[in-house]
C-alpha cells in the first residue's frame, strides 16, 4: 500500500539564472590555487551542518530562508565594495529544494552587488563536496 509519494519541491534555487552559478569543481580549484584573490564564501544554511563540515575559509551566516538570516547577511556585506566577489552556498538539500540560496542571492543583488555566484550543489554538501575529496573544515 502506498502511504505517500515524493513530489517535486518549490524549486526556489532552480530559479537562479545559470550565469550566476559556480560549479563545485571550479570553486575547489579556485580556493586551492596559490594567491590571495579568493572570494568571500558565505554559508547560508544551518549551523549544525556548518559545524560538521564546511568549505575552509567560509563564514556561517544562518539560514537565509528566514528574515533573521537575510538580515544577518545584509549586515555582514554592507561595508563591502559592491564589486566584491562573493560565493553563496548551502548544500542542505537537493538543489531544487534548497530554501536558502535564492533569498540570499536576491538580497545581495538588491543591495547592488555585481559579482555574486551561488555554488551549485545538486544533492547535498556531503555528496557533492565532501565525498569528492574537496577541502573541508569543521567546527565554528
Amino acid at each position, binding site marked *: 500500500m502506498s502511504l*505517500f*509519494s515524493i513530489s517535486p519541491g518549490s524549486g526556489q534555487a532552480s530559479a537562479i539564472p545559470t550565469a550566476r552559478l559556480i560549479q563545485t569543481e571550479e570553486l575547489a580549484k579556485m580556493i586551492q590555487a596559490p594567491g590571495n584573490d579568493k572570494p568571500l564564501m558565505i554559508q547560508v544554511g544551518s549551523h549544525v551542518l556548518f559545524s560538521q563540515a564546511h568549505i575552509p575559509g567560509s563564514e556561517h551566516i544562518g539560514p537565509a530562508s528566514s528574515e533573521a538570516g537575510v538580515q544577518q547577511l545584509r549586515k555582514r556585506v554592507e561595508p563591502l565594495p559592491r564589486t566584491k566577489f562573493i560565493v553563496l552556498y548551502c548544500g542542505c538539500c537537493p538543489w531544487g529544494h534548497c530554501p536558502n540560496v535564492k533569498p540570499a542571492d536576491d538580497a545581495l543583488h538588491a543591495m547592488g552587488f555585481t559579482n555574486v555566484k551561488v555554488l551549485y550543489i545538486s544533492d547535498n554538501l556531503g555528496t557533492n563536496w565532501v565525498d569528492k575529496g574537496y577541502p*573541508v573544515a569543521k567546527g565554528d
Partner: protein
Amino acid sequence: MRGSTRFLLAAAALAAGALVAHYAVRQHRAVGVTLSAPAQNLPAPDFTLPQLNGKDLRLSSYHGKVVLLDFWATWCDPCREEIPHLVELQQRYGDRGLQVIGVSIDDSPDPVHPFYQQFHMNYPVVMGTAQTGTMYGGILGLPITFLITRDGRIYAKHIGATSAEVFEKEIKSLLQN
C-alpha cells in the same frame, strides 16, 4: 620470524581490519575532516539529547523496538513532505513495536515547537547537534533516515527523500524479527 611475533602481527592485522570494517559503509575523506558512518549491522551510536518537552531522550532506551531515526529540519522541503507519512507509520505500526524518533538540526527549537503542533507529530523530537551528526557519519544533507533493528543495530540508511513503500517494507520486515 618467531611464532610469537607472527601471532602479534596477525592479531594487529585482525584488529585493524575490524576497525576498518566498523567504519566501512561511508567514508568522507577530505582535508581537515574525516567523517565515518556506522556500518550496517553494527550498533547504532547511542546519544542522549533534549526533547522538545525538556526531558532527555536516550536512544538505547528504545532497545527492543524497531527505530526509525529521522534527521530533519523545519525548513527542509523534502522533510516536510515526509513527516506526515512518518506520523502515519508511527500510528499504524507503533503498537507492533515501531518507534519513530526525529532529530531536528534546526539551530534553535523555536521553529520546531509550532511545527510539531502543526504537523500533529506523534513521536519524540530531539534537538540534534553537530556531534550527533558526526557520530552518524555526517548529516550533510537532509533528510537522512536510519532504520535500527530491535537489538539496536543499523539496518539501513536512506539519504534524501524516501518513499513510504520503502520504509514500510523495511519496517514490516524488521517488526517480524
